[in-house]
């Protein structure tokens, strides 16, 4: 199994390299530093949310409310700024706490009342987005100090790549270590495959899942802060629909939708792959609808792919008489 994972990670990484090279050779502008700057800016919030989402899906759950948590955080940040909170660290701290609390609500319904995460987070997807409209209505808050907004997208000296990617990288290392090299991670894989056996081994399934949803909320809020500053705009519809981009990346990255299987490296590669693909095709004037279709097909392929491979292998084995 471990070898299988590694080979899937390798396939996604390889696909990323191939798409990047082919894109650079055939599409005008893909080779330019500006292109990579945009890909990175777009990938940052997706990656931030994909990190906890990977862990959540590995335990056999899902969090579909992430985009709404992001949106609600944006509006609260805007409202706080308007009402006179002018310290950026304070704003960030409040937003993170808010995100964590929203995640805790998900976690409470799912682990406390034993409800399916799919149903609960579809509910809060609507609820949190609705609250975002309650906070700001159709208004947009965009009069943030320019120092903040430029700081958010400032490149690493000597490159065009925004420095925030370093924050994402550091967080990715943290999540990867937790998942792959800490006792907690072993418990996550165990409960994703067989929650009962995990419980018999002393894994606190409910508590662990609760904290994962809290982490998912907090990371979505962090993505919301970045979103607000990058676009210098807090609106209730910020980030609508990106939960699909996140889930697509996680599944394409080799995480099983049924839980118990997957690795973080593949997910990060898939976030990059989808970003390059989307932006590259945009540069090639492929219409937005076609882009959505392509993302959808990739998603289906990533879910069906491993099953088809397994079926082929079994058939081959059977006929080998």
């Amino acid at each position: 199994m471990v070898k299988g994972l590694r080979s899937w990670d390798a396939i996604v990484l390889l696909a990323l390299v191939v798409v990047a090279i082919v894109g650079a050779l055939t599409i005008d502008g893909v080779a330019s530093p500006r292109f990579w700057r945009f890909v990175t800016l777009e990938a940052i919030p997706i990656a931030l949310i994909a990190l906890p989402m990977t862990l959540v899906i590995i335990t056999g759950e899902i969090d579909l409310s992430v985009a709404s948590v992001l949106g609600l955080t944006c509006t609260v940040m805007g409202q706080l700024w308007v009402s006179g909170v002018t310290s950026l660290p304070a704003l960030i701290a409040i937003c993170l706490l808010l995100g964590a609390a929203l995640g805790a609500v998900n976690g409470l319904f799912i682990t406390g009342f034993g409800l399916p995460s799919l149903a609960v987070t579809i509910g809060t997807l609507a609820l949190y987005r609705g609250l975002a409209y309650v906070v700001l209505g159709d208004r947009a808050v965009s009069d943030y100090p320019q120092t903040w907004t430029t700081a958010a997208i400032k490149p690493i000296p000597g490159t065009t790549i925004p420095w925030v990617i370093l924050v994402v990288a550091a967080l990715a290392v943290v999540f990867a270590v937790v998942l792959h090299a800490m006792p907690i991670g072993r418990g996550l894989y165990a409960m994703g495959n067989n929650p009962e056996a995990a419980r018999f081994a002393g894994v606190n399934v409910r508590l662990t899942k609760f904290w994962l949803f809290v982490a998912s909320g907090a990371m979505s809020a962090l993505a919301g802060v970045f979103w607000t500053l990058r676009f210098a705009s807090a609106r209730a519809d910020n980030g609508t629909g990106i939960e699909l981009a996140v889930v697509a990346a996680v599944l394409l990255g080799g995480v099983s939708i049924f839980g118990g299987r997957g690795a973080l490296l593949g997910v990060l590669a898939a976030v990059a792959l989808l970003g390059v693909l989307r932006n590259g095709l945009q540069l090639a004037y492929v219409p937005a609808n076609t882009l959505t279709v392509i993302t959808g097909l990739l998603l289906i392929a990533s879910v069906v792919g491993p099953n088809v491979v397994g079926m082929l292998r079994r058939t081959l084995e059977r006929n080998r008489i």
Partner: protein
Amino acid sequence: MSASLLTLDGVSKSFGAVAALRDVRLELAGGQVHGLVGENGAGKSTLVKILAGVHAPDAGTVTLDGQPLRLSGPAEARAAGIAVIYQEPTLFPDLSVAENIFMGRQPLRGLRRIDTAKMRTDAGELFARLGVHLDPDRPARGLSIADQQLVEIAKAISLDARVLVMDEPTAALSGVEVERLFAVTRALRDAGAAVLFISHRFDEVFALCQRITVMRDGRWVSTDPVDALTVDVVVRRMVGREVSAMYPKQDTTVGAPRLQVRGLSRDGAFADVGFTVHSGEIVALAGLVGAGRSEVCRAIFGIDRYDAGEVLVDGVRLSNGDTAAAIKAGVALVPEDRRQQGLVMELSVQRNATLPRRWELARGGLLLGASERRAAAAWAQRLQVKAGRLTDAVSTLSGGNQQKVVLAKWLATKPRVLIVDEPTRGIDVGTKAEVHRLLSQLAAEGVAVLMVSSELPEVLGMADRVLVMHEGRLTADIPRQRATEESVMHAATGQADA
């Protein structure tokens, strides 16, 4: 000797580098029960799966009634008249017991609707034949491993097959259920069926079978009529050496109370259960299937919450329903159902073996493969786990070897209170003696051992004291000197006077 009904000739099967079967032959005759024995990993279940159409052989032929048989799936095997009871029950947890029995061949009434009433009464009749008290309408989820096994048995005998293959059907059953199963099996045999019976319990094999085939390391070793064999001969052929004493019980000095259970009750499972296990003591919890033994173990270990009572380890109260705390206090539970409770089948042998110890194996918070491998390897060797690599999924191991991984997983935690629920289920003679020796040695080192076992010889051979449960209550507490088959069975069937 009657003519052969089903014949395997020169059958081989490999999984990657592992040769599970090499040039195996076997002849099953109608009206006969044929025993198949061999060590864990000898290839018995692989052979069964070939008969069931689950695996296709790499080489060799299978003939039924003189016709070559090419099975491309379990449905075909069933159509050919071969019914199979697999080593591990594979019920659909959300379907009812009756639905599980008649899966894929439900009785129909008008408009092709499923005739649930008939299904229910048919299931009830099957259970009556087996002397089982099970509600056909209850979902399969939550059935004990023994009950699951009984449902599988009911399913197989309801097929009225000409060939009945049973892979360790009795591993989780106690004497009474085994006797019923044997009566039904003999009736099928007398009606002309060919039966293949696999078990690690030799008394059963010798009582039921007319011929016995021994396998070792994937090869056929011998087939003889049962009268020409003795247990010792069979064991020597299986293992290739003498096996040390089966019940190497050491005399120990009983120390202070280690595990104290007081007035434990859980609605619908057990009531007012109280007992003490001292340091150095092996206490067996005996009883019929469904008496509530496993439920008590689960409650002590914090898997289920109890409604009343308390559990103390070394005088310190355990919090109700908290498994992590129980483990921290030094309690270990080897559960009855290795596939559902004992192991995460998709994970590797080493991940499974080290799961309860993942925190203590970490260095500076980090858990690296090397320390897991080292820890797992030590115990895998001690219990002679036969596995390709420790990084292989535990599902690729044979049933007995999976059981050894469960044991390794918990013995490695160095428990102070060791609860073992059917610890040797599916384990071969050689290793069974080793497991008994380990249990005995642990007790000598001061561990309190609570053992649930349906195998009466194991109970009588290993226990310092036998507690007997009947319908959720403790009905007897019998010291080793007075524990006999009669006294235990008396109490287990509710005729206690103790």
